[in-house]
């Protein structure tokens, strides 16, 4: 008997989806198990299908929702959302029409399962270990938390997947990121991934699929693993993955689309094989010690520009991009961010808009009040997150603290729907990008965890949330 060559988790998922292998001249044809679509990056893809007279090959493997350009304005009980922006309304209507025409299931505005695409798919149990998952959105990497191979694609590729359920791809390289030990109290998954990006840089994982490994990763909940995998793209990674384990299986059990009965048992047995074999090698490796990771906050205009919450903003030292970022952010090199006045706290997004994120934020808001002059937005990632949060009374905590409790959506993470940071203002945000103007033209974003964002909301300043924790 010959022993099989040891393979990485990525390699196993990839191998299982190759329709035709790559040759010297042609990339591999890769089968896609799940295609998630939303209103912003799909209309041109449907138009391409119509131009060629093509249909959607597998509407049963396609799921749609609307999230990017939809309003998150709080609604009275039973009220229906109204989209005031005519362009956004047209885009949303186009999605409804396209889904109806091609037989694609849609969770529209007002549906109890609507929400940010990367929040609802795991909630529904659609995201599962070993699947290939794509979406016209770079944060599709989120789903890798389940040991799926999940990555963002452009609109041309959305069209290819609609038409053929396949993509063309050259095999990427692999990068192991091992986080040893355990995170300290008050240090979250968001801090972990900001530390990783800070270490390897915003282009550090370009061309690679990351596998997150090590004790600190194994100790994370599914929601925390999603936060980590979500930001893989911020290091340039094609995807980020965590091998499935008991935590994964426990999360999926009983989800609406999770397999049932004998199918569940067979699925679990299959999922348990989805680990990197002893002796398998990665193209690159990086190791971090969890004990060295502090609560992190970004000072610059890309997610790699982070410092520990008590650290100081770097000197440009001849680096034009640092000088540029400091000028945009109006920050002085060598100064601490701690104590700096902030105008907005934004808690939400596909990075940190899940129930555990809201619980963390609520633990800081409880018994406190949003500081004078600060606007605090809490935007649940989905209708289900909203419902669960309300069942626990978190909405009351936020409202009593003077924060806005809004409807689900991408909101001020991408500022397409009217939720916008004003020019020159500072926001501590739990989202994923601090690019110039990302949250609104001229706005300045400091990325951090829900704990840190909530602490900024109640103190009106950049604060080490650990000082507020009882």
């Amino acid at each position: 008997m010959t022993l099989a060559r040891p393979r990485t988790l990525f390699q196993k998922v990839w191998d299982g989806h190759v329709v035709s292998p790559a040759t010297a001249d042609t990339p591999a044809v890769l089968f896609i198990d799940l295609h998630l679509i939303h209103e912003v990056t799909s209309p041109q893809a449907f138009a391409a299908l119509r131009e060629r007279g093509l249909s959607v090959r597998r509407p049963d493997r396609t799921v749609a929702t609307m999230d990017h350009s939809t309003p998150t304005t709080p609604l009275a009980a039973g009220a229906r959302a109204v989209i005031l922006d005519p362009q956004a309304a047209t885009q949303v209507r186009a999605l409804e029409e396209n889904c109806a025409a091609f037989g694609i299931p849609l969770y529209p505005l007002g549906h109890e399962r609507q929400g940010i695409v990367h929040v609802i798919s795991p909630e529904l149990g659609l995201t599962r270990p070993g699947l290939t998952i794509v979406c016209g959105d770079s944060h599709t990497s989120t789903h890798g938390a389940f040991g799926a191979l999940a990555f963002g694609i452009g609109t041309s590729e959305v069209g290819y997947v609609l038409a053929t359920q396949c993509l063309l791809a050259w095999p990427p390289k692999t990068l192991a990121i091992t986080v040893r030990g355990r995170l300290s109290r008050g240090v979250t998954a968001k801090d972990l991934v900001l530390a990783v990006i800070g270490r390897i840089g915003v282009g550090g994982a370009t061309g690679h699929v990351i596998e997150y490994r090590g004790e600190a990763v194994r100790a994370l909940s599914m929601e925390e693993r999603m936060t980590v995998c979500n930001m893989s793209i911020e290091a340039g990674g094609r995807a980020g993955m965590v091998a499935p384990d008991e935590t994964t299986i426990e999360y999926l059990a009983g989800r609406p689309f999770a397999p049932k009965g004998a199918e569940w048992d067979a699925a679990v047995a299959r999922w348990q094989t989805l680990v990197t074999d002893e002796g398998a090698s990665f193209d690159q490796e990086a190791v971090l010690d969890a004990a060295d990771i502090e609560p992190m906050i970004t000072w610059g205009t890309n997610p790699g520009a982070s410092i520990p919450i008590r650290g100081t903003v770097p000197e440009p030292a001849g680096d034009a991009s640092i000088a540029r970022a400091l000028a945009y952010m109006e920050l002085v090199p060598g100064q601490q961010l701690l104590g700096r006045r902030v105008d907005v706290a934004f808690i939400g997004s596909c990075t940190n808009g899940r129930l555990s994120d809201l619980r963390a934020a609520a633990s800081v808001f409880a018994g406190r009040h949003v500081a004078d002059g600060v606007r605090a937005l809490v935007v649940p990632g989905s209708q289900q997150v909203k419902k669960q949060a309300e069942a626990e009374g978190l909405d009351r905590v936020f409202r009593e603290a003077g924060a806005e409790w809004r409807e689900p959506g991408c909101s001020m993470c991408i500022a397409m729907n009217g939720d916008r940071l004003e020019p020159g203002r500072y926001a501590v945000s739990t989202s994923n990008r601090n690019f110039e103007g990302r949250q609104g033209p001229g706005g300045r974003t400091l990325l951090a965890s829900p704990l840190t964002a909530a602490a900024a909301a109640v103190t009106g300043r950049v604060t080490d949330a650990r000082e507020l924790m009882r």
Partner: protein
Amino acid sequence: MDPFRVLIGRTVVLPMDDVDTDQIIPARFLKGTTRTGLGQGLFADRRYGADGTPRADFPRNRPDAAGATVLVTGRNFGCGSSREHAVWALMDQGFRAVIGPSFADIFRGNALKNGLLPIAIPAEAHARLAAAEDASVTVDLQAQEVALPDRTHVRFTVDPFARHCLLEGIDEMEFLLSQESAIAAYERTHEEPSGRGTSQGRT
């Protein structure tokens, strides 16, 4: 798609690393439903001041840069969002190639699918090109070579399949559609259950 073989064009230099797709086209310009007209959003927050007037310090706003078809920029161009609108906006403004030390993965893929050639060249040659404003370059995709204004030639590589598609003016959809029998065979033998048919959560 028109074939891409040889491009003779003038450059405009945006000397910055890590230009993200939010810079290339801010999200507020993504609310349309077509691929056309996106040029008005290209680098919108850099090209125009808060009052909407063109900013003199933005390279593309110089009169001699108006006809440039080649953008020369820093490393990791196109990082961030997967928005293909970034490519459509560049092409709508006349760009046909972007030259830099490196590109973000999704942007590179999107560019190649639309006939915008991302050309990664070594740092030394890039520095020479970035120092020369409004230079004339000749890009030969067949030979995978750029002729720089100082008459030196720099080699680059494009993945062989994308190069074939560009040279012939065909797109990847054609190739995927031609794989029909292999896809159908895969679906019969390998496919993981979607879990939808048996679910109580069916919409």
